[in-house]
């Protein structure tokens, strides 16, 4: 009990029993420690929003954003881009017949030729993309439907793919079907149109050289996707598995001429497996290397030859080809430049308005105004 050595009239803080009478046993003081932490006296910085900090900050943001926006806009305007829609919806379109007559089990592929003209020459590396619209690669069931350990070359997963791949896990037709390699809906819907470019000049039709390697992410190609049992003898490695349902050829025949682009590490396959975030997307297809003394793509007439294998009519999708050059900020992106200019000017304008308001209505009281 605290009563030992306690004075009835004691008023000033030394209420602990110990200090007064040292020998009265060790009555511990209940007083909290007088440290800065426990007494909430830690040294602190107390920022306050004054006109002297906020208004210059707004001005600075405005002054930084507007030049950046202008730079981005100018850079973006210098990038050349050309888009060709070859879905074949209208009857006048070259690929109309192919689109109409598509059937799943046709062995020969339908080809159509789409002519287009480039007004301006394209300098430096030109990149060829294929674009799809209304294709929901970001649907949750679709995104789940893959087996990354199988794609990484794991032999166990090769023969027994993960359950997430259902219903594209085992092949039909057999009660216990062969495992599908690669399994899943993403792999099954691989884009298989073949696109070729021909330059028409002086009556001759020259094929534009398209590079099919260097289109995937480095980590994807070298870390994430590995062939089971190495890159050689893929036929043997994939024995006992079946091809995906909607593929024409099995995975080890994606590029038989190049062992570095065959099997799971085929770059078109890797690019497709990197699912897009939005329903309208584009994926890198081919690279046109820059030429030394001539523009990569001279202006003039061109022809796009499509081997029409990929059906999109059933879900109102669209297919297109995009030819684009690249800068430090990537492809053509006018939104970024415009957004920066807008935000910068809004900030600047806001700063001016706040300055005016602050000057007109400044009634920051001195301490005399505080009711005491």
């Amino acid at each position, binding site marked *: *009990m*605290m009563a030992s050595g306690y004075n*009835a009239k004691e008023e000033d803080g030394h*209420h602990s029993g110990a200090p007064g009478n040292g020998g009265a046993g060790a009555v511990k003081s209940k007083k909290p420690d007088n440290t800065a932490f426990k007494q909430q006296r*830690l040294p*602190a*910085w*107390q*920022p*306050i*929003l004054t*006109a002297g900090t*906020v208004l210059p*900050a707004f001005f600075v*943001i405005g002054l930084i954003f507007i030049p950046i926006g202008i730079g981005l806009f100018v850079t973006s305007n210098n990038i050349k881009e050309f888009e060709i829609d070859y879905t074949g919806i209208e009857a006048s379109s070259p690929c109309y017949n192919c689109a109409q007559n598509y059937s799943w089990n046709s062995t020969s592929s339908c080809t159509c030729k789409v002519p287009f003209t480039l007004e301006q020459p394209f300098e430096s590396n030109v990149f060829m*993309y294929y674009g799809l619209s209304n294709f*929901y*690669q*970001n*649907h*949750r069931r679709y995104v789940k439907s893959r087996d*990354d*350990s199988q794609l990484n070359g794991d032999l166990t997963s090769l023969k027994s793919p993960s359950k997430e791949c259902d219903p594209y896990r085992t092949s039909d037709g057999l009660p216990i079907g062969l495992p599908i390699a690669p399994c899943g809906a993403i792999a099954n819907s691989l884009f298989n149109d073949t696109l070729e470019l021909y330059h028409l000049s002086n009556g001759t039709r020259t094929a534009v050289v398209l590079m099919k390697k260097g*289109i995937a*992410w480095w*980590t994807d190609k070298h870390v*994430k996707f590995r062939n089971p049992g190495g890159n050689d003898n893929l036929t043997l490695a994939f024995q006992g598995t079946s091809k995906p349902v909607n593929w024409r050829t099995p995975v080890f025949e994606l590029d038989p001429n190049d062992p570095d682009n065959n099997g799971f590490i085929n770059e078109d396959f890797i690019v497709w497996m*990197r*699912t897009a975030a*939005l*329903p*309208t*997307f*584009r994926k*890198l297809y081919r690279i046109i290397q820059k030429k030394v003394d001539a523009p990569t793509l001279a202006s003039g007439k061109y022809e796009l030859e499509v081997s029409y294998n990929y059906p999109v009519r059933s879900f109102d999708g669209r297919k297109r080809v995009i030819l684009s050059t*690249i*800068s*430090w*900020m*990537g*492809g*053509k*992106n006018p*939104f*970024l430049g415009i*957004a920066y200019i807008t*935000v910068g000017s809004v*900030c600047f304008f*806001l700063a001016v308005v*706040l300055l005016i*308001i*602050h000057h007109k*209505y400044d009634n*920051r*009281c*001195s*301490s005399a105004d*505080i*009711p*005491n």
Partner: protein
Amino acid sequence: MDNISGEFALVISGHSLAHALEADMEAELLMTACACKAVICCRVTPMQKALVVELIKKHKKAVTLAIGDGANDVSMIKSAHIGVGISGQEGIQAVLASDYSFAQFRFLQRLLLVHGRWSYLRMCRFLCYFFYKNFAFTMVHFWFGFFCGFSAQTVYDQYFITLYNILYTSLPVLAMGIFDQDVPDRRSLEYPKLYEPGQLNLLFNKREFFICISQGIYTSLVLFFVPYAVLSNASQDTAEPLADYQTFAVTTATALVIVVSVQIALDTGYWTIINHVFVWGSLGLFFSIMLAMHSQTLFSSSPNQFHFVGSAQSTLLQPVVWLTIALATVICIVPVLAFRFLKLDLKPQLSDTVRYTQLVRQKKRKAVCFSGGAGVRGAAGSTSEGRLGARGGSRRSGYAFAHQEGFGELITSGKNMRLSSLALASFASRHSSSWIDTLRKKKHSHTPTPPGAASGDSSPAPSCVSGSAAPPLSNSPSVLGGSQDAAIEEEEARTPPPSPLQAKPGSSTSHARPPSTTLLAASESTQGPSTGGGPGDTAPSAQGESGGWTLSLGAVQEALSNWRSLGVRSSSPGPPSL
């Protein structure tokens, strides 16, 4: 009853309270009690204490606080909203039953004005920020639903979703909830009006909640649509498109963490070293964990779990991504900054003003110190602070439940009403306790009183000093032997000039005190003008007859009404009444 001006106090003893708390009377009691400035219930039982508290709780929309130190206070402490126990002389029973406990009654002021206020402020800021950050985080999925076929695909990596609330954003807000202060503790004590927002529920009500939520929704809109607009057609500088799911996820997650960190930086008003560590540390933790999760090492251990391999490294090296994040941050934060600045500028609250002046003073003091030879001025500055602080920290006793006999007797005896202490002394002498007698004798030996006016110098309650040599007003014979009119005359001659009151600010105290002490002060100061009249008076016999009691009571009442008006007129600036 609500428009009663003037200050009343109700003193009610346990016996009367027993009647007053009956069902048919309690409404009356409540009304009367709430019209008074202070209510003193003496000689009450513990049960009655609890009943009084519950009466208030039931019928009034108020938060009740009960403070006590003895076992007889436990029921009251338990029934109030906030129970405070004093640990000390009476044991620790009250402490064990209470929500808060400390050692001395005077700490109650600090509990309420400093810690209670800070606690309310911290809680409200914490709640507002918590709702904001979670809405900003979650509503992004709502907007994404429109673009993913409403398939409930998440925008972020699953590990980010798990760790967002645990690791990336919890520590800064925790630090704010523990350490935040808007004004220092001395200022809180100095300006009790700062306590008002807590009483009026101003900092977190439906309106504030709605504002928090809307801010969260706006942030989520920006955080989804800016990356959507920028990345949908963008590509890396190696031409791979940036619109893949993993890049989008990393961009949005990074933008989110940066935006909410900037927001907590804006919300925190008191940056201790711990706040710095937590805020910058959380950001750093986010980047390091993300880079670790997207590394090749973890991928090789479990490819299906860590399939984001390479995303962070690839995404965060793109200038376009950082430009997107910067754009999203500015769009989210600039309106908030503008609103807050305008609010501070056009409609500052008292706490903002106090904070601002505090910082201005600090800067001045620093500047003064830096200018050399200002050690003295600096000290003077701090002493003025000290004086201000001291004025604000005046001791007030507001005991509601008396359990010791000594004072109760005194109050009911009317002993400390010096005006007619001569007359009342006769009345009081019937109940004189030895203590009072001793005091009387002491006074008698000190002051040179005119003959026979022995009891007239009875010193009132010990805290006041009656240092003047002049015999008190009470020596006027008119009170006792004279007619009623003469008595009134005498008093009025003495009461009018309010200047003595103002001339002696030291002696006059706040008028929130119980009227007895106000009378005390007034009587002291009116001794000035009465000095001349005093000694000349013939002092009547101190041993008053009981017949004089009725007359003196009337005189007391007159004095009361006069002095009250005096007090109102002279309105000295004391601390506002609680």
